[in-house]
């Protein structure tokens, strides 16, 4: 199964993202869906890079595969502090410009833009699984109609 493990450092973000992009492209997604896959993966990776290892160095792994149901699955694994992002409270979307806080959007975008997401802690590892449906012909037709 295609998999990339690298130090959880900003210097490796471009390479980590390039891996996911190429895997998504190889799976035949259109560019709009690829953007969603990239966005959710970037948010998860940046969180691991910034927050998972407050005191030590550590790695982050990405796995990409098509599951039995034809979904594209991205799995992000780290050995950092336990953190279930999916349990994190949503940002206040109604705040006006002055009151609006700059943080808290990453996890929210993941929840909204991935078709499926699941968090689990296995031993010392955080595993975040993101799933993306491959668009069927009907979905595409529908999208064309609603976005003329």
């Amino acid at each position, binding site marked *: 199964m295609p998999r990339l493990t690298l130090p959880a450092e900003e210097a490796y*973000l471009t390479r980590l993202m390039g891996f996911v992009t190429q895997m998504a492209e190889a799976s035949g997604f259109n560019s709009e869906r690829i953007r969603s896959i990239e966005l959710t993966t970037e948010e998860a990776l940046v969180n691991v890079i910034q927050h998972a290892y407050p005191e030590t160095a550590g790695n982050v792994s990405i796995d990409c595969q098509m599951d039995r149901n034809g979904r594209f699955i991205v799995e992000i694994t780290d050995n950092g502090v336990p953190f279930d992002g999916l349990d994190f409270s949503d940002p206040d979307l109604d705040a006006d410009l*002055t009151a*609006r806080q700059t943080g808290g959007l990453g996890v929210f975008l993941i929840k909204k833009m991935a078709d499926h997401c699941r968090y689990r802690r296995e031993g010392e590892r955080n595993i975040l699984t993101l799933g993306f449906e491959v668009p069927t012909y009907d979905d595409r037709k529908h999208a064309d109609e609603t976005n003329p």
Partner: protein
Amino acid sequence: MSMEIVKNGEQDNCVLVAVKGRIDAVTAPEFDKQVGEWVDADTSDFIVDLSELDYISSAGLRSILGVAKRLKENDRALTLCSLKDTVGEVFDISGFSTIIPIFDSVEAALKER
């Protein structure tokens, strides 16, 4: 090209900027630096043309919000225009579409802001 920022001069007391490519965790610091300089060097409002922006992540949203707040503090305004569908979706989900004015074209932004 992962990100390109261009200043397209000034019109009606408004600085016109275009951002192309991607504003993500890698390019956002460059955006902050470049646009920050332009904001400091001027007293006008800003219109940012995103017609060639393909991708924005929360790091990019944070940068945009930062510029909007900074201008607001001095009674200046940030206006965005010409968002692609995928970028518009991110602005909608994050609620940014309701706190930052967004128009369909530079012309509309200049006229209606």
